C-alpha cells in the first residue's frame, strides 16, 4: 500500500483534501453547492474538447471551468442564479457529448475523468496540482474576512462598502481553480463530494469559523486517506469510498448537533 508508485497517490490526495476542505468550507457557508457541482462537472467537457484537438486536457479544464465561473456570475446579475447555473451546466455537458461523439476516446478515459483515477497518478502531475492548490488556499486566505462577512452578516458587509457580487465572482474563480487541478486526479464528481460532506460535518461539530475550517480539512484528510486504503485493498473505485465516508461524517455531525440541542433544551 505504501510502495513507491502509491506515494504519488498519497501525496496528491493530501493536497486535494486540504484544498477541498478549505474551499468547501465556504461553499457550504455560502450555500454555493450548485456552482460547486456545476463547474467541475461542466469542466469535464473542456477536457473532452482538449482531447479532441490534441491539447493538454489541463488547458481545456481551465478554460471551461473559468468560463463557467465567469459566465454564471455574469448571467446571474439578471435572473435567478440557480436557473442560470443549471443552464450553464447542461450547455457544457451537451458540448462535452458533442466532443465525445467526434473523438475516438475509449470509455475508461471518460470514466476516469468523471470518477477519477487517483491510484494511477504520475509524478509529473504533482507539481501543477500543488501549485494550483497553493494558489487556491492563498486566494481563500486573502478573501477570508470578506467571504465570512458577505456570507454570515451581509448587512455589515454592505455597511463596510463590500460589493457582494465582486466577492462572489472571486469565489467562483477560486472554485474554478480548485476544479482545474483536481478533476484529472479525483474526477469531476468526487471533488464535489469532498467539498460538501466534510465541511458540512465540521459545521455541525463546531460553531466558530476558524476551528470549523480546520476541522473541515481534518475530516477531508481522514476521508481521503481511508478511501485510498480501502480502495487499494478492495479494488472498488475511490469515489465510492470518499462519498460514503463524507456522508458518514455528515450523518455523525447531524446526530451530534441534534443531541447537543436536546441537551441544551433540557438544561433550559
Amino acid at each position, binding site marked *: 500500500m505504501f510502495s513507491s508508485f502509491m506515494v504519488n497517490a498519497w501525496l496528491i490526495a493530501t493536497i486535494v483534501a486540504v484544498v477541498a476542505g478549505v474551499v468547501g468550507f465556504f461553499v*457550504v457557508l455560502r*450555500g*454555493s*453547492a*450548485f456552482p*460547486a*457541482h456545476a463547474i467541475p462537472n461542466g469542466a469535464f467537457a473542456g477536457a473532452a474538447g482538449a482531447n479532441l484537438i490534441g491539447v493538454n486536457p489541463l488547458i481545456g479544464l481551465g478554460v471551461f471551468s473559468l468560463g463557467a465561473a465567469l459566465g454564471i456570475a455574469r*448571467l446571474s446579475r*439578471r*435572473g*435567478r442564479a*440557480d*436557473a*442560470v*447555473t*443549471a*443552464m450553464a*451546466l*447542461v*450547455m457544457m*455537458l*451537451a*458540448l462535452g*457529448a*458533442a466532443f*465525445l*461523439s*467526434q473523438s475516438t476516446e475509449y*470509455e475508461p478515459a*471518460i*470514466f476516469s475523468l*468523471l*470518477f477519477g483515477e487517483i491510484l494511477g497518478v504520475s509524478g509529473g502531475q504533482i507539481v501543477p496540482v500543488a501549485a494550483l492548490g497553493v494558489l487556491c488556499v492563498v486566494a481563500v486566505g486573502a478573501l477570508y474576512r470578506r467571504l465570512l462577512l458577505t456570507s454570515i452578516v451581509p448587512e455589515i458587509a454592505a455597511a463596510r462598502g463590500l460589493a457582494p457580487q465582486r466577492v462572489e465572482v472571486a469565489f467562483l474563480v477560486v472554485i474554478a481553480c480548485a476544479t482545474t487541478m483536481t478533476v484529472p486526479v479525483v*474526477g469531476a*464528481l*468526487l471533488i*464535489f*463530494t469532498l467539498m*460538501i*460532506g466534510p465541511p*458540512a460535518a465540521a459545521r455541525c461539530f463546531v460553531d466558530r469559523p476558524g476551528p470549523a475550517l480546520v476541522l473541515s480539512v481534518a475530516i477531508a484528510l481522514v476521508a481521503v486517506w481511508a478511501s485510498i486504503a480501502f480502495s487499494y485493498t478492495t479494488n*472498488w*473505485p475511490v*469515489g*465510492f*469510498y*470518499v*462519498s*460514503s465516508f*463524507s*456522508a458518514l461524517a*455528515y450523518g455523525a455531525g*447531524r446526530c451530534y448537533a441534534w443531541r447537543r440541542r436536546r441537551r441544551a433544551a433540557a438544561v433550559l
Partner: protein
Amino acid sequence: MFEPGFFSSGPVVTALVIGAVTAVVSAVVGVFTVVRGQSFAGHALTDVATTGGSGAFFFGVSPLVGFLGAGVIGAGAMDLIGVQRLRGRDLATGVVLGVATGLAALFLYLDTTSRATTGATQQILFGSIFTVSSSVIPLVIVMSALTVGVIALIHRPLLLSSFSSELAAARGISLRRVGLLFMLALAVAVGLSSIAIGSVLSTALLIGPAATAIRLTSSLRRALLVAGVLGVVSTWLGVLLAYDSFYWFPSSQGLPVSFFIVSLVFLAFLGSGPLSARRGSRSPATEQARGSLRAEVV
C-alpha cells in the same frame, strides 16, 4: 431541410413522440421548479435517477424501477435532511447528490467489470433519445399524465407557499406536505425524462423553457403555455438537426441530439434576457413575474 427518410424512420418517430411528451411535462413541472428556486434539486434528481439506472442494470431489474425508485428515495432523503430552509436546501441536495454519485461510481465500475458492456457508462450518463424502445411509450405517457395531474391539484398551495410561507400557513396549508408532494412529483417527472431522453436533456428541458417563459410573461397560464411550446419546438428541431447532421461531415459521424436540443434551449434562454429587459421593467423581470404570479394566487 428534411433529409430523406426522416419521417419513415422508426427511431425518429419514437423520438419525436417521447420528446414532445417529456418536453411538455418537464415544462409544466419546470415552471414551478424555477419559481420555487429548486433548480438544483431538479438537476440533482436526474443524477440520482441515473444512479438508480446503473443500479438496476447491475441487479438486472427493469431500468424504470431503478430510475423512479432512486428518484423517489432521493427526493425523500432531501426532504428529510432539510429542504425547508432556503440555505439548508442546497446543502441537503448536495449531500444526497454526493452519495448518489459515489454509488453511481460503484455500480458503473461493477457493471463494466462484471459484464464487459462497452458503452454502458456513456449510455447511462448521457442517454439518447434515438435509442428509446417504443414499448416504454405508453408507460411514460401514463406516468406523465399522473405527474401533471398531481401538479394541477396542488398548484395553488404550491405557488402560495413559494411566495409567502406566512400567508400559506395562515390559510392552513401544510408547507411540509406540499413541499414533499412537489418533490415527489419532481422526482417522477425527472426520472421519466432521464430514462427517455438522458440526464443532460432532462435538466435542460426542465429548467430552460421554464426560466425563459418566466422571463417573457407574467401570468402563470401563459408561462406554462410558452414553456411547453418552447420545449416541444426545441426538441423537434433538435431531433431534425441531429438527423440531418449525419450528412454534414464526410465521416458521416453525426452530432448527438442532446447537443442540438440543449443549444436551442440555451439560445432561447440567452435571447430572453434582453427581450425581457426591453419590456421596460427596471426591476429584474423574474421579480416582476413573481409579483404578478403572486397577484394571481392571492
